[in-house]
């Protein structure tokens, strides 16, 4: 498996990927009721993927598919129960959380709840420097101003509080706070879904510019596939904790192979008034992850399900330009 991943899509295999997941899984023990036995909930299972420096990996899927759990593991906030995560080839569990924080930083969905309302913008942005005891007070101030300029925040906001800022400005604060430690990887968990469309465009443009300028790697979690298509180099599609399709964004969008990926792409509503609403064949919602279906997890909703699909779990295999987990592809 790892060998396969090693060659996959990376012509210069000498380069150590910025981020690599090897068979990563996370199981939570859930108690249903006061006297009930604890049950395992496999939030993430056997996820293997990798991204090179300066590339954007998008993780897509419905709510409850494990994308946020995966993001938390990438940030070192949750430990994987199986497998390992490597940053620049170094296993994440061998370094301290402080050192992880120097390499990986998050930008969260809701800029209204992710900034401390009682701290000024300067205090918020400089907090990572303070925690890591970097520089004097004056040098920290200079650096805060530098990063505010970088993300397009006017200098006069330095003593403002988050409630005095618009949604777009708050998200810029969150981005500046994430970048001030000069991380290599930024994990963006739905960074624009709480914003208006015109503000979203500003933030997406900013993220693109910063990536080019600072050679950043993004792990971009989103359910908005139009945004993913616009931003991502690589796309990982997750379903009920499993990676079901992984490949170059351009290949996946031009030729989705897994029936679930196809359904996801079909449900994107482009602003084209000549088209009606798409017919989505995925009848029911996501099954209960506490008792996942037998065989392929997707078979109860799959329009192409065969007999084999309910009996046997497909393995993640390489098919032409991508990795795919489906019995339809050999």
């Amino acid at each position, binding site marked *: 498996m790892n060998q396969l991943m090693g060659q996959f899509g990376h012509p210069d295999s000498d380069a150590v990927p910025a981020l690599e997941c090897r068979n990563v899984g996370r199981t939570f023990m859930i108690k249903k009721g006061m006297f009930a036995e604890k049950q395992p909930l496999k939030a993430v299972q056997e996820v293997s993927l990798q991204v090179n420096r300066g590339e954007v990996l998008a993780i897509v899927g419905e709510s409850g598919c494990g994308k946020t759990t995966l993001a938390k593991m990438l940030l070192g906030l949750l430990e994987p129960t199986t497998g390992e995560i490597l940053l620049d080839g170094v296993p994440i569990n061998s370094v301290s959380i402080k050192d992880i924080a120097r390499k990986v930083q998050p930008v969260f969905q809701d800029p209204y709840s992710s900034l401390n309302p009682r701290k000024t913008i300067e205090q918020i942005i400089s907090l990572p420097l303070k925690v890591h005891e970097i520089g004097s007070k004056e040098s920290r101030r200079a650096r805060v101003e530098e990063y505010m300029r970088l993300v397009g925040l006017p200098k006069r906001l330095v003593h403002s509080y988050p409630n005095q800022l618009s949604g777009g400005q708050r998200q810029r604060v969150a981005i500046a706070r994430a970048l001030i430690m000069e991380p290599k990887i930024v994990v963006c968990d739905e960074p624009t879904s709480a914003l*208006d469309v015109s503000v979203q465009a500003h933030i997406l443009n900013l993220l693109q510019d910063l990536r080019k300028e600072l050679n950043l790697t993004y792990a971009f979690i989103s*359910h908005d596939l*139009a945004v993913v298509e*616009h*931003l991502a180099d690589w796309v990982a599609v997750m379903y009920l904790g499993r990676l079901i399709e992984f490949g170059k964004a351009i290949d996946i969008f031009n030729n989705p192979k897994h029936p679930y990926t196809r359904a996801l792409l079909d*449900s994107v509503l482009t602003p084209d008034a000549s088209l009606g609403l798409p017919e989505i064949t995925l009848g029911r*919602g996501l099954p209960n992850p506490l008792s996942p279906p037998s065989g392929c997890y997707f078979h109860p909703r799959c329009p192409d399900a065969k007999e084999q699909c309910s009996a046997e779990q497909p393995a993640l295999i390489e098919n032409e330009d991508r990795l795919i987990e489906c019995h339809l592809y050999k």
Partner: protein
Amino acid sequence: MSSDTVLEVENLSVDIAVPAGTLHAVSNLSLQVEQGETLCIVGESGCGKSITSLAIMNLLPRKAKLTADKLALEDRDLLSMSESEFAKLRGDRIGMIFQDPMTSLNPVFRIGDQLEEVYIQHGKGGRKEARERAEFLLEKVGIVAPTERLSQYPHQLSGGLRQRMMIAMTLMCDPALIIADEPTTALDVTMQAQTLNLLRSLQKEFNAGLILITHDLGVVARMADRVMVMYAGRAVEIGSAEEVFDMPTHPYTQGLIDCIPVPGRTEPGSKLGSIRGIVPALVGDLDGCMFRNRCDHVSDPCLSGDIGLTEISAGRAYRCHLSPEESKNKLSVEGAACP
């Protein structure tokens, strides 16, 4: 007013008293909804789209002051109606679907009780008829085993199912008008298309007028018969979905369309178009075009005076000083620059 018109609003304004003065949340808004028609109101946060819907339902906050030349539902004047008369109307002739199905159902009552209550409250019949109607509608919204579902509590249902319950509840009394405020924003993409399909087919079947409020241009393009783009409490562009999306006349509409990435249209990785600046404060005396600080085509006439709606053809109007030809030339050039 033709006999098919469900809702008619003329020159609706909503002013809200705030410490700094008067906030003009909605200014001189006129709209009409016909039977079986879908009107989409689209705009960004703070543009007054939700306040408009609350004004129609008479659910405005106490500090808000409503003025209008006309506000009529099925030829009944809503302006002179008392609160108790309105209470009879809501849930009966007007149905409302809110954004978040998690919070719009009462968690301590069974689904069935909540559906039946609407029916019984409005004197449509007794408990037995109500139960029959609820089961009939649950089947309509595609819920298998409706009898079992009716005895469940909201927390036992997924988000998609809950939103279907809301749609069923709205239809209990066969309303003339349905107002849906961001009905699919809280749902997954796969559920979104299904829920919208359902809403559309049922609205046509029950021949109700639908006001769909959303910020998602994709939803608007696919659902709307007519579109009203709102900015700063005013309608800035009105027309059929084809007209508005294929040939936007107001610079704001064009800006909105350029802002969103569209698979197949925007080049991946390219710069998205953007609207500079921020929404103006709506407090105090407002003069001139509200969009002038963010517009690339601003000229002297934009700075002061009242900019009225210019009608291009029947049902197609926009609020801008550019003539239709000018805007066509200018906006299409701009559109070509950032595809």
